[in-house]
Structures are given as structure tokens and as C-alpha cells.
């Protein structure tokens, strides 16, 4: 319950911040009767009201559960929050962020190979010759597909500079 109340609070704060952002939108004569801030302000009010509604709904649900003889909450609602699971899920974002940071530096082929090996290992596959071959093969496959077949100018990274310098 507390978690959902906190979410309501966050949403209310977002509505407030969004209103302030909408209020700061420069006025223009071309904006028509409503202006560029018209709908955003309407949405901010809607979100504020809905977040209050969510809080009210949560409180009413909690009151209902406290009554004697009330039906128990489903197991999924009472189970402890699986923080380790959420942390593991967020690890995917971490790996993705690493890929995005490395992409301009190492170039596409190397970055995608590292991405493949990182996600495979993170998904529970022990690093082995097989996973290494998968990463190398996958990297080459994606390189051929995107750079040669689809003609996408993916970043070449420092290696390209080194090789061109050597040449």
C-alpha cells in the first residue's frame, strides 16, 4: 500500500513539475486560442487528479483489507518485493548504457561483440569457447547485415582510425 501511495505522490509531483514546465512555454501569437501550453496544462491537471484518485483507491483498498473477515490479499500482493530481481532487470539497462558509451569509442563490431558476450553471461551462461564464438559470429553477422547489406554508417571507432593511420 505504502508503495502505491508513494507512486501517487511521485505522479502528483510530476504533474506539478509538468504544469510549471507548461507555464514556462513561450507565448506565441501563432498558437491560436489555446496556445502551445493549453493541452499540457490540461494534462497536468488530469494527472494531478488521477494521482489523487489512485491514492484514494489505494487507501480504500487498504481499509477494506483491514476489516475483520476480509478476503486476504493475493499472494502476489503480499510477497516481499523482489529487489534482487529488479536489480537484475536494471542490470540490462546498465549493460545497454555500457554499450552506448563504448559504441563511438570501440566502434560497432567490437561493441556489439562485447554486448553479446555481456548479455549472454548476465543471462546465466558461463563464459566459454562457445559463448565466445557466438559473440564473434554474432558481431560479424550484425556487421554484415547492417553495414554492408543495409548500408547503415555505424560508428567505426578508434580501430578504424588506427588502421587508416597505419595504412
Amino acid at each position, binding site marked *: 500500500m505504502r508503495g502505491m501511495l508513494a507512486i501517487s505522490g511521485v505522479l502528483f509531483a510530476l504533474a506539478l513539475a509538468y504544469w510549471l514546465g507548461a507555464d514556462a512555454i513561450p507565448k506565441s*501569437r*501563432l498558437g491560436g486560442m489555446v496556445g502551445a*501550453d493549453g*493541452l499540457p496544462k490540461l494534462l497536468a491537471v488530469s494527472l494531478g487528479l488521477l494521482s489523487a484518485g489512485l491514492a484514494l483507491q489505494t487507501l480504500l483498498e487498504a481499509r*477494506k483489507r483491514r476489516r475483520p473477515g476480509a478476503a486476504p490479499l493475493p499472494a502476489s500482493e503480499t510477497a516481499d518485493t523482489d529487489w534482487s*530481481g529488479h536489480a537484475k532487470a536494471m542490470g540490462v*539497462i546498465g549493460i545497454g548504457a555500457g554499450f*552506448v558509451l563504448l559504441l563511438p569509442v570501440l566502434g560497432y563490431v567490437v561493441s556489439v561483440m562485447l554486448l553479446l558476450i555481456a548479455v*549472454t553471461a548476465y543471462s546465466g551462461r558461463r563464459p566459454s569457447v562457445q559463448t565466445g564464438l557466438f559473440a564473434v559470429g554474432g558481431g560479424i553477422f550484425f556487421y554484415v547485415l547492417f553495414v554492408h547489406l543495409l548500408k547503415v554508417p555505424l560508428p567505426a571507432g578508434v580501430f578504424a582510425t588506427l588502421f587508416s593511420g597505419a595504412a
Partner: protein
Amino acid sequence: MDGFIHALSAVTSWQILLAAGGGVLWGILGGALPGISPSIAMALLLPFTYDMSPLMALVMLGSVYIGAEYGGSIPAILIRTPGTNAAAATVIDGYVMHQQGRGGEALGLSLTGGTIGGLFGLILLATLTKPLSDLALMFTPPAYFALGLLGLSIIASVSEGSMVKGLIAGVLGLMLATVGTDPLSGVTRFTFGEPELLEGVHFILVMLGVFAVAELMSKLADNEPDDLVKPDTVSKLVLPSLSKLWSLRRAQAIGCAVGALEGPVPGAGGTVASFLSYNEARRWSKTPEQFGKGSEEGVIAPETANNVVTATALVPTLSFGIPGSNSTAILLGGFLIHGLQPGPLLFSTNPDILYGLFGGLFVANIMMFLIGIVILGPAIWLVNRPRPYLNASILALVFSGIYSINNSIFDLWVVLAAGAIGYVLRVLKFPALPLILGLVLGYMIESNYRRSLLLTQGDHAVFFQNGVSAFLMGCAIVVLVLGAYTEFRRFRREATA
């Protein structure tokens, strides 16, 4: 007649045949992989369709949708794990048939029923879309605004979980749609000085983040074990004979009828249709006691229904530009990235695209049948690959595909942010579809809202003065009130229980 010629020229074009075949193949393989829904399979392909001709891109996306619905039945029958939500009803009898050594027969029934359903749905799509589009020609800006609100209200109120959460997700989607340069005045909104946001947040980035990346995160968080198919347990697919199909005509007719009624209803989709048709097939069966024990009717009815839905779900999308499911929202995205706005004008401005799409989807259904016969072996091989390889390949495909759209690193950050938001929404049980729909419909809703008020000097009564708009606004209000009332009744019932 012109429409028929457009459709015919599409089915005789090798590019369209290639797009349909490739889309169906990708769809079957994607649908066969538990965790890759039809919408994810379509979203993964979306970036690749940028450089294609509009018709080729749309046929390919539509074909993925068709193929994925059949593909979902493969693991449902072989490993009791539905590849798609709509295939969940197929598990009940399909898996029992497999245990009885009739897995090949079950797959044959699924494929044949799916093809018949798909073709039947296509006939409905081709006959219903034009009259409904003509109706939409009466729409003025206030009516379009009201239509957008109605679409969003329906999706928000029928979404899983509470209606309030559905509405909040819809509002968040509309908020995202306001980022960027205001199309009327040219002033920038919520860009935080970031030039990459001047054109707004592209819905493809959000779709891939919310569907594909968030799905991957959920799978890792849940630590799902790999379910494997023993390759020697299914030797080949067994197609039903004509006499067998005739004996199952009642179940197929039920599947067709349910799919026809459910498909155009926003939010209903193939899952509801397949379970409903399973129930109705059992109710009307001469051997209802066989259901749950390997009934052939129990396989063909839901499979027919969910493939009818792949076509009939397109009716509101093509007629009004309002998608009713994740998959049709992505197809709408396919239209938008090629500068096409589905709706009544599309019939007069781009009839070749619409009728060509019908022709392409016809080819896709035939292709599904042909490819379905030979794809079983590769599909089983793919389902048996260790999940970590699949996870890694999906993420690499998402990033590569997204980068290829604008050659932008910034877009990759947006996808990651959308993935994180999508995961948080899942954990908190907020539905994702209203968010996507809000983002996709945001421009239509805002531009028509402001245009309406411009015409009436700011008088909001305009939305209730125009007949069509008043009707649609009334419907939106009824939908919201009914949704709130249903929740209130559920609350009271639980409180007094």
C-alpha cells in the same frame, strides 16, 4: 474494380511476395519463441522498414502479425508454453494431443484453422473498412478530437488492472507526445535545450523500449527456466483431410464468428477471442466431454478465431486511425513513418496502398500455410536454443535497428530510458498500451483540439454541438462511467464478501 486491380498488382509483385514471405517467416519464428509477442516481433522489424516502399513495409509488418499468431501455437502444443497470449487456449487440448502422440495433427489443425480464419478475416476487412471510412468522412476536427479521446478511454478502461492506472498511462503518453516543437506555433516544449528532442520523442523508440527491452528485463528478473522440445517427439506436421475439416466445420464457424465480433473491439484482441471461441465450441460441440482431453475442435476453434482477429483488428485502425492493440498500434506506426495517416482520406489519396495491403495480406495467409508446413523443424531448433543467446541477440538487434533509423546515439539512450520506464510500469501493474496509444494519438488529439477551438473562438461547447463529436464524446463518457462503475461494484463485492 480499381481496388481489385491494385490488390492484384500487389499480389503479382515480387517485392510484395518477398515482403509477405519474409514477414510470415519472421512472424512464425518470433511467435514460436515464448516471450516474443507478435507486437515485439513487429517492433523489432519496424526500423528495417524505413527504407522500403510504404506498401512493402506495411505488408511485411502485417505478415509478421499473421505469422506470429500461428507461430505461437507451436510451443503451446509442443511444450505447453504459449508463444503468444492468444495461443494460451490452444495449450488446453493441443498439448494433450501432443502427449497422445498427435502433436503433428494438432499443429496441422492449428495451421489450417489459422489460414481459413485469416482468409475469412481478410474478406471482412476488405468489405467493412470502406463503408466505415465513408462514415469517417463526416468527421470534423471536434469529431477527430472526440474519436481520439474515445479510443484512449476504451483502451484505458479495458486494460488489465485498475482503470485509474490505465488513464494515468494514457495521460503520460499524451504528455510524451507534447515534447518537441509545437506544430502550430513553432515554439519548443519540454526539450530542456536538447536539439535531438526538437522533433519530439519518436514512438518507435518508446515501443521498442517498452515492449522489447522491458520484456527482456522481466524475463531476467523472473529467472525463467528454458523449456525444451525433444526433437524426436514430433516428426512432421500432419495436415487434416477435407473430410476431417468438414467434420470440424462447426468449431471453425464459431472461431470465425467470435473473431469477427471481437477483432474490431479495441482492447479485446486475439486472447479474448480464442478463449471465447474455445468456450463456445465446447458449448456447441456434440462431444463436449472431449474438451481438455485432446479435442480437435478445442484446437481449431481458438486458432481460427485468433487469426480472424489479425485481420478484423485492422478495421478500426484503417477506418479511423485508432489502433485497438499493441500489434495494430505498431502497424499504425508503420503507416505514420511513411507519411500516411490511416483514416477515410487514405481511400482517396492512397487507394493503391490500402488495396495493395489487402492483396499482400492475402498472399501472407497463403504463405503462412506453405511456410508453416516446412518451418516446423527450424522452429523447434530455435525454441531449443539456450535463452541467453536469444536475449543477447534481441538486445543487439534492438540497438542496431534503432541506431540505423537516425544514426543517433541519443536515440539509444531514449530506448534505454523507455525500457526502464516500461519495466517500472510492469512491476507497478500499469498497462503499457494506453501509454503507447497516447503517444501515437497525441498529435491528432492536440491538433484537432486546438483547431476546433480556433474555429469557435475558444468555445469548448463545440465538442458537444457537432452531432458526430457529441456522440463520440458521449460514448467516451459512458465508457469511463461504466468502467468506474464496474470497478466500484467489484470493490463493494469484495468488501461484503
